[in-house]
């Protein structure tokens, strides 16, 4: 171990890594589910996350709504946003060349960023702190913010619920069927549009929860806040094996831990904090292109 790092700080960093990783995992699920079904990198997902952060900010800091009302409204609006984006920007292009779909996704992302800059100004807004969640408590030399514990717990509960839904319910079965074979699923009478809409709804809802938790830990919102987390979370999905929900969670955690631990062990590299995800991406693509949990994909004519 590097000189100067005590067991306490190491544990502390582990907790930070766990909470950051859980946030990444929540967002990564949205990417992986959409990719699994539409084979599309939903570039707008990071910006959906950003909009959710603004919804929360407006609810709490501008309209002074109680937090539980804000959370419900945020999640509702974000789901609406995600489903609308799919309806307006992706559905008309479903039979178009894939490049058009990808450009449309980038276009939506660019539009959301610019609309947010225009409406809310490019300046970062301070998110009100929750003293209950941010005042650290101490366990044997460790100082822990309650929010760092709350995040993994919430994330764990949501992910378990999601896995249950995917594996045990009818809509989950439909989703798996569409992901395996789009055309056959259609022939079997699965309502493709409904399945895709609910995929976007679930992804957006998780992004909304991720945004709420993110704002509590990093209390500041700005229009471009979704870009870098968005890219990283897509990478997390690739690390775990794109299309695989458990893989997205695993990838998110790996990314969270490696980021926090890199900064902790090599403080000189703090400036390169955002770069580690891409280094991992290149390594994964070179040696394990299907990700850690992904299946080998066979390309058919």
């Amino acid at each position, binding site marked *: 171990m590097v000189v100067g790092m005590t067991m306490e700080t190491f544990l502390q960093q582990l907790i930070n890594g766990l909470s950051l990783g859980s946030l990444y995992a929540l967002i990564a699920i949205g990417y992986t589910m959409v990719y699994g079904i539409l084979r599309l*990198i939903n570039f707008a997902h990071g910006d959906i996350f950003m909009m959710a952060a603004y919804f929360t900010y407006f609810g709490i800091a501008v309209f002074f709504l109680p937090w539980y009302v804000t959370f419900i409204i945020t999640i509702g609006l974000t789901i609406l946003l995600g489903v609308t984006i799919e309806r307006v920007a992706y559905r008309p292009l479903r039979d178009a060349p894939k490049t058009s779909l990808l450009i449309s996704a980038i276009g939506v992302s660019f539009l959301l960023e610019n609309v947010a800059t*225009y409406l809310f100004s490019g300046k970062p807004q301070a998110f009100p702190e929750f003293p209950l969640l941010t005042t650290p408590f101490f366990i044997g030399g460790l100082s822990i913010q309650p929010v760092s514990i709350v995040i993994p717990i919430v994330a764990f509960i949501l992910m378990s619920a999601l896995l249950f839904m995917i594996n045990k319910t009818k809509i989950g079965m439909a989703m798996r069927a569409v992901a395996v074979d789009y055309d056959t699923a259609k022939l079997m009478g699965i309502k493709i549009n409904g399945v895709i809409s609910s995929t976007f709804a679930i992804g957006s809802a998780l992004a909304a929860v991720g945004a709420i938790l993110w704002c509590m830990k990093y209390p500041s919102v700005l229009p471009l806040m979704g870009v870098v987390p968005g890219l990283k979370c897509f990478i997390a999905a690739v690390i775990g094996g794109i299309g695989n929900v458990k893989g997205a969670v695993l990838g998110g955690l790996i990314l969270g831990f490696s980021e926090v631990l890199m900064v902790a062990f090599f403080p000189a590299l703090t400036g390169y904090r955002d770069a580690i995800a891409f280094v991992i991406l290149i390594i994964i693509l070179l040696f394990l292109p299907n990700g850690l949990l992904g299946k080998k994909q066979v390309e058919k004519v």
Partner: protein
Amino acid sequence: MNETQNNLGAYLKLHWKTAVFLVVLLIGIGLADIFVDSYMRRLLNLCAIYVIVSLAMNLVNGFTGQFSLGQAGFMAIGAYTVAIFTVPVESRAAIFYLEPMAPFLANIQLPFVVALILGGLASVVVAFFIGSPCLRLRGDYLAIATLGFSEIIRIIFTNTQSITNGALGIKSIPTISSLWWTYGTALLVIIATILLVYSSYGRAFKAIREDEIAAEAMGVGLFKTKMTSFLIGAFFTGIGGGLFAALLGTVDPKQFYFTLTYNFLLIIVLGGMGSISGTIIASFLVTLGQEALRFLDEPMAFGLDLPIFRPGLRMVVFSFLLMIIVLFYRKGLMGTNELTWDFMAQKFQSIKKKLSRKKTSTEGGGK
């Protein structure tokens, strides 16, 4: 001797319109270079740089069908190479005042052209390292990896204080103001792209775009061909970035934010993915349009103080434009057509026919 003269004569007879057009174009650039004021000169230079970078992007994205979003990053590499190697040695101490320039670079000063080409080559080297893992795989990994790369390169340039002067950027780069640098390079790039696209390489690019599996079955080496296209694109983009640095006279990491890439994406989508002439037209439209619409960012000057006009509106308009083109006019201005004399004659004929029929045509040719 006689033979070649005959050939030249025949060639001119066949392409006399193009030859006349080129001569007029060159005279036009020459006249503009003499008479245009400094604001317009800067704008026209910017147009030419946008032509270079957009063509390079179209070569990769439009002709080869590989989705690269690294333009801002490759431009940054070209721009910084030019900046580092052309800033006069004596003014370096004043620029690098926080931390002196690394000794191995501090005394090297190169002529502009050499630095420009070096910048292109540096982009190629980096592109090779990004391309080798990503282009082997099917799917969209290239998009994420290149977008990520242009973020990383910014981070690196911000942190390597002794080489790039970090967030402060490098100032007092010897500037170019003549239009010939940018337009000369743009013409070279256009000619190179045309020759490339209509060569056997170009046909391989298009085959990959249409169907990778079929192309592979026809004996096109997928990885090698994609890599060729990607590296050539990176080279031109690096050159474009170098010209950009020399045009502005200063570089800093903020200029190369990834949203810069979206300008070029808008251009190639508007012009038509896979059309050289479309890209050129769209480069001018978008660059001049962005200047012309600057008033959208200013608060309304007269009477009503409408809060609609304020910073950011211009970019909202442009992103809306991108969405509308993608959703409703997917082919852009030109589709995969080129603005040749035949194409124009055909269009002219069809318009004439439509007018003489005096009926609303059921065939929506679209523009």
